[in-house]
């Protein structure tokens, strides 16, 4: 019974994430308007038949802007977390496999990067690169690299000691072959869970950065930006800010729930715990 509830939860999470990804990819198909089309006559409206979620301060359709905002947000975050996984994973696996001074140097550098509060390091990186969607993505990638490196090094250390790795080495397999074919596949579940959880966090960071004016720049549709623009017209028409916030929440929530229920399903040791 309990297992069934958990799998229902996983199904729900997958659905929530897939629907939002489809909406983002298919934004040009689903969106009722052009995201840039302004209309002076219909500014700051609440939800109507014409604009389901209302219009913003320039009369642009909020629903359309949210769908395109999903796109911006997902592109930035998938890119950022992907790069972090690639860089952090490579560093973590290299450290675990070769040990010794290489391990010590790599992990020291990761410790230093990890020491910065996330937003502060991200702001510092954007100060260097200049505010842009891709600067925000680069900042998130740098910030999450040490997390992946630390996370994958631990289980990799254990796997390097295992008998099948010793066996592979004995029959003369190359280092790359051992790392990619023997160690990596055994960590698939850790990687999957953590990628999903970090995507959830990355969506919030990207939205925060755009909200501060450091990420995506106008007029590109962005969820964080919609919130900060809507804030100036809060007393006139709060709809754009409210709906953009819900969109950020749903997107981040979906990935977090996905990671959480994946962890339960993939790791039998944790089943029934949390």
């Amino acid at each position, binding site marked *: 019974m*309990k297992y069934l*509830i958990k799998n229902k*939860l996983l199904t729900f999470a997958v659905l929530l994430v897939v629907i939002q990804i489809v909406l983002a990819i298919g934004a040009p198909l689903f969106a009722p308007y052009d995201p840039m089309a302004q209309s002076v006559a219909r500014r700051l409206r609440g939800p109507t038949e014409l604009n389901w979620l209302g219009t913003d301060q320039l009369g642009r359709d909020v629903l359309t802007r949210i769908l395109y905002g999903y796109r911006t947000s997902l592109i930035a975050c998938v890119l950022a977390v992907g790069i972090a996984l690639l860089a952090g994973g490579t560093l973590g696996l290299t450290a675990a496999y070769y040990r010794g001074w290489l391990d010590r140097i790599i992990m*020291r*550098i990761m*410790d*230093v*990067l990890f*020491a*910065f*509060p*996330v*937003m*502060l*390091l991200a*702001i*510092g990186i*954007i*100060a*260097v*690169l200049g*505010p842009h969607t891709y600067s925000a993505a680069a900042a998130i990638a740098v910030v999450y690299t040490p997390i992946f490196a630390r996370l994958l090094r631990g289980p990799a250390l254990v796997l390097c000691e295992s008998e099948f790795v010793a066996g592979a080495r004995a029959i003369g397999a190359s280092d790359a072959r051992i790392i990619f074919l023997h160690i990596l596949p055994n960590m698939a579940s850790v990687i999957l869970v953590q990628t999903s959880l970090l995507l*959830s966090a990355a969506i*919030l960071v990207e*939205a*925060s950065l755009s*909200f*501060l*004016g*450091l990420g995506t720049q106008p007029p590109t549709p962005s969820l964080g930006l919609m*919130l*900060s623009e809507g*804030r100036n017209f*809060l*007393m006139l028409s*709060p709809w754009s*800010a*409210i709906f*953009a*916030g819900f969109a*950020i*929440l749903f997107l*981040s*929530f979906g990935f*977090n*729930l996905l990671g*959480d229920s994946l962890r339960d399903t993939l790791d039998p040791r944790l089943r029934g*715990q*949390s």
Partner: protein
Amino acid sequence: MTCTGAAFLHAPVLFFFEELALMNRVLLARLIDLVIVLFGVSIIVFLMIRLIPGDAVAIMLGANTEITPERMAELNRRVGLDRPIVEQYVLWAGAALHGDFGTSLWTGRPVATEILMHLWPTLELTFLALVIGAVLAVPVGCHMAQTHGGAADVAMRIGAIAGLTIPSFWLGIVMILLLSAWAPGFASLGYVPFSEDPIGNLQRMLLPSIALALPILANLSRLVRSAMLDALGQDYIRTARAKGLPERRVVYKHALRNALIPFLTSVGIMTGYLLGGAIVVEQVFAIPGLGRLILGAIAERNYPLIQATILVVTAGFVIVNFLVDFLYILVDPRVRA
């Protein structure tokens, strides 16, 4: 006879010294770690200004005044970019160790003063949010652990994840909106120092602290819940129950004490998250904290000020975590191994 007597007296004393030596070794190792991390942090922050694509000095000047060769040379000299890079670092880090971060490029005030002026509101906000989140997390987590299993579990889990992923800056905006409808007279924006008007200060800090605290509350209460479930499964809990202690006492005295250890470590880690969150939430509530300082500095490309702010806050965060770690070693002998 005397011999055994002396040995008997000796053993605890010896034990004490061994303990002390072990503690010192652990402390020393941690201190070395701390110094290495702080050194690494300073290197990264130092390199920031050198990594700016193009001519950093021209970019800094271009944001504020007309670029002339004289002005460029003068700024180059002030920021110290005209010296060899190692010498630049030694001068910069040496001055920073004495609390001297130079003068702000455009206001002419010392950077350290600028940071101190803006530090207090951010620290207060971070502290209040941490207190609200941590204090509420204990009863909520205990309650979650006691009523675990079935549909209630799923509902709480979804609730906790929602709390974790709700954007605090959005929560802040929604709260301002609701409050302006329900209680139009309630001052929720801006900042007054606590020393000038304690009630006005706390009144204005209420909404931002709640907005910032919610994700912490969600995170920590989940942690308390799983630590409590762990603790409640232990043998000493069965013993406590068997000797007829009331359930309340079993949960809050016997289980909770042991569940609090992982809780304390994550409170240390949370401060970093809170500091970042505070920077964003400050913008919503118009609080003149570090967020305003650093965003203003980015807008006018005042790189030395950005560098100093990041360095000071990160160093503070690292040192706080070191102290939490150290307390943890003092409290829990198992970590010393």
